[in-house]
């Protein structure tokens, strides 16, 4: 016969464990979510601008300039973390992934430097978009991994 009390105790214990983590996980999610949203919005803006359809998303020319600036600054920060091992909590998942991946870190730095140069000259090519998409995918994976921890409460 199934021990219902045992089951409910187990569930309460599980819930307790996850409740304790709620504050720390939701703060982490908030930080990750903000960076993910800003980078995703910035890339979306540049892509829609390249298609000359910014008005359909209520994007202004000023938004395009701001998005370009945001991606340049983000890529510069990431480069500096990759080169000097400067501490950064927000970029830790990306850096750890780059360092443990097949592609050498030097190649990532080179890609990021090329992306910065292109954006500084108001250009964006397919290879640049792929680099940002790879980074976005890592950030999104990290965000959804933490989101699942909340759902599993």
């Amino acid at each position, binding site marked *: 016969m199934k021990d219902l009390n045992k089951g409910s105790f187990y569930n309460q214990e599980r819930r307790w464990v996850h*409740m304790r983590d*709620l504050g720390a996980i939701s703060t982490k999610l908030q930080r990750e979510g903000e960076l993910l949203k800003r980078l995703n919005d910035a890339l979306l803006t540049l892509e829609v601008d390249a298609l000359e359809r910014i008005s359909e*998303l209520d994007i202004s020319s000023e938004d395009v300039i701001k998005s370009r600036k945001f991606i340049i600054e983000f890529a510069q920060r990431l480069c500096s973390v990759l080169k000097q091992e400067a501490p*950064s*909590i927000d970029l830790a998942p990306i850096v750890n992934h780059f360092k443990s991946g097949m592609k050498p870190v030097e190649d990532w730095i080179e890609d990021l430097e090329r992306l910065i140069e292109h954006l500084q000259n108001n250009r964006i090519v397919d290879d640049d978009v792929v680099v940002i998409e790879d980074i976005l995918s890592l950030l999104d994976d990290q965000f959804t991994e933490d*989101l699942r921890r909340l759902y599993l409460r």
Partner: protein
Amino acid sequence: MREYVNSKIMEYSLILDWIENEIGILQAKSVHPQIISFLKNRVSDLKQSNGCLKAILNIGNNRVINRTLPIIHDIEYRIYMLTCHYIPGLKREQESDLFLRNLLLSNVERMGLSWVKDILVRLDGPHAALPALSEIPIIFAPPQQANSLLDMAGIYHELGHIVFQRFKEIADNLIETISRHFSERMKEIGPMRPEKRTQLEDAIKDAKNYWTIERLNEIFSDIYATYTCGPAYYFSCVDMIVKMGGNPFNISTTDVHPPGAARVHACYKTLLPAYQEEEITLLVRNMWETYVKSYQRLPDFELKCADVLIDSIVETSIQNIKNLLPNARRYSSTIRGLSEARTLTSSDSLETILNKSLKILLKEPKYYPEWEKNVFAILHSKHAKR
């Protein structure tokens, strides 16, 4: 993908209408106008995000459609906050939840949380905080908390999460402290065989990576709680570790909390020197030392949670509290003897009451039930109103 995004647009449209309707019902009951206003803004932002999904689909470019998934994940997170926490919390709110909410809200200025407009209290779970919307955080506590001071100091730890969430620089400054500490350990490595050196360097890198944002959040929240609540929180932390059992030096890679021994050390170091020598603190310290005597300090603990590192974390955290929360009052009341502890005055802060409670509980427990009853008679008369 296009079909999936289209279905999500419809789903969000329906769920946002439902949320809006629920908020309308709650608004009609005139509860928590600040929270209602924040939630309405939240729904409006969500509708905008849903509109963005529609516009992306209209553009129709496959590459641009790739941008929809992170937007969907963001919407899911924000809807989860509303439908799983705020709306049920508001709908189930009882007099006891409201009492604790009023009690906490009357203390937030002194705790330095000047930005907090309202608090949603849910007396239906263990202590926890949901600080995602830092102006209107949710605090969870067990239901007996409406009539018992026991373990109430734990709520100060939850308030620490709200502070950590509010100021990103706290995490940044703590990570700098951690990096500095481990860089110094690297420099200290003397001459040795290359394989041994690599092994040691890897262990130091691993120790540095142990300090994730969640663990920094937890230890900061302990430090904040001790800063504002004094010995009452120090005891609460010791009690929590002892009652849960296990080796307090054990490092768990799956637990977002640092090991108990590191947390207790951080709390002790946060106490003002006068309290470190005070009778009650010495009593609690003695309890703790008796408990830890039977456990071994593991080498992994020595590397990841060395006393010198925890001391630096305490120093950085206190500096951040002083700089970012200039109105937060460090606990500094003096309760001279038991007769003073048993006497309540109208000027007693919640922290003073909790420290009096600790003194009576540890020194004269037989007086505790009656004393606590009197405390709640006073607190209810002050804070039970809507």
